[in-house]
């Protein structure tokens, strides 16, 4: 059971525990921030294009909206077809400094009944799925103060 921990997408997040952050990029010319990261070009149509440097996004944000997935999603989402489907909870989280909304699954165990729009959450490391060799890691959102 010594699986390699591999991010499901390279360079979208890094760090452990308190230091975990989603990673975006920022244009050195106009200051626009991108997540998912843009590494080739700045997408501001008024920008002639500066260097895109990696930046960590705000760790905390507020719930813009939320939902769940009551039915098993199709591939490429990976789930065990022999196990009963466990709904996941999906959050859209507004980051104040970046003025953007980012999607992410909630930490396991959090259901829509636990949530409301405007609630504060933070990005934490999580596991998306495991296969024979690999633990695929991802980001999760976790309510800051569990009621």
């Amino acid at each position: 059971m010594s699986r390699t921990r591999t991010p499901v997408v390279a360079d979208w997040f890094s760090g452990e525990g308190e230091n975990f952050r989603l990673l975006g990029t920022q244009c050195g010319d106009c200051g626009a921030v991108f997540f998912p990261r843009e590494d080739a070009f700045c997408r501001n149509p008024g920008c002639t294009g500066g260097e895109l440097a990696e930046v960590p996004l705000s760790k905390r944000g507020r719930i813009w909206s939320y939902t769940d997935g009551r039915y098993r999603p199709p591939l490429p989402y990976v789930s065990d077809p022999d196990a009963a489907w466990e709904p996941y909870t999906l959050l859209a989280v507004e980051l104040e400094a970046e003025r953007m909304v980012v999607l992410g699954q909630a930490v396991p165990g959090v259901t829509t009944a636990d949530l409301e729009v405007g609630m504060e959450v933070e990005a934490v490391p999580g596991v998306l799925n495991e296969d024979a060799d690999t633990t695929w890691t991802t980001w999760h959102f976790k309510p800051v103060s569990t009621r």
Partner: protein
Amino acid sequence: MSRDVAVLGAGMHPWGKWGRSFIEYGTIAARTALEDAGVDWRDVQSIVGADTVRGGYPGYVAGATFAKALGWQGARVTSVYAACASGAQAINTARTQILSGLADVVLVVGADAAPKGFFRPAGGDRQDDPDWLRFRVLGATNPAYFGLYARRRMAVHGDTLEDFAQVKVKNAASGALNPYARYRKTVTADEVAASAVVADPLRLLDICATSDGAAALVLSSMDFARRHGQPDPVRIRAVSTVTPQFPQTVLDLPDIATDSAAAVEPPGRTFRASIAHAAYEEAGIGPEELSLAEVYDLSTALELQWYEDLGLCAAGEGAKLLREGATSPGGRVPVNSSGGLASFGEAVPAQAIAQVCELAWQLRGTAGERQVAGARAGITANQGLFGHGSAVVAVR
């Protein structure tokens, strides 16, 4: 110079799950539209197909696929794809060919044979395809996005599950009267409430299914229509095919995040509102002049959002407009008199064309039991993946 083009003919293949090829559906819709127009296929100078990304090559080259099925006759051909807006893009392509003088009469066809279950991306491992990533990383199906929009409306505008259910009730009642609809029976609010939750807070009956279906239009120049004995046809007056403006701050399928507004202020209108705005500008009419609207009710909650984005009411007052009955049959501006996606289920490349078929029949006054009395002007609206959306204004 008039920017109008004439709708000479409209035709559809009934929506459903028929288990046959999209080519067959599209060919039947095309033949029906040609017959309705009284135009021989060999006199059509251009054919525009709305692609389906299913079905391999024939789907990617829908225009050529239908031209071959109808019988090669040398017409110009174009195939376009724009997700849910594909049909409107095809209409716009036909319109520009007519207005440019390069063609007098053009056939537009869209057809799909839907897969079972959720829409899903093509196979492979594509870390640079947002549509692939949203499934791989988040399991975010289309209904998940609809659920997010619905919950947001509840929190911000006070919409209720009962409001959402009433959209379904209204559309199912209209769909029951439409021979092309897949679901032809009325639905009660209790039935909506009793259906399974798919993506909280939305239930099975809040969310549109995926269907087989096909729709076609024969469009022509106003001169051709006159010569063809139709001096007063239904006219397409505007087709909006605009893209968003950076930063796009409303979460858009299949994106994992919105653009950031930290460096650049967001535009004054949201993307959906800008789609409608461009159509009104081009048509030279406003929402108060509409007799009816066909909007993309991928979910019940989304229909309420369209009321606001089309300017039928102020922001946040969609549910109020519904409750007042303004958008019901007999109301000030009936919405989805066809039955909408609620009654059809989505056949992606056909759907925006089918919306315009409904406008054509309503403006001709031939919509039978669904007829909106004295219909003079209508709009269609839809939005799809990747910054696609469209609105078509038709008048008589």
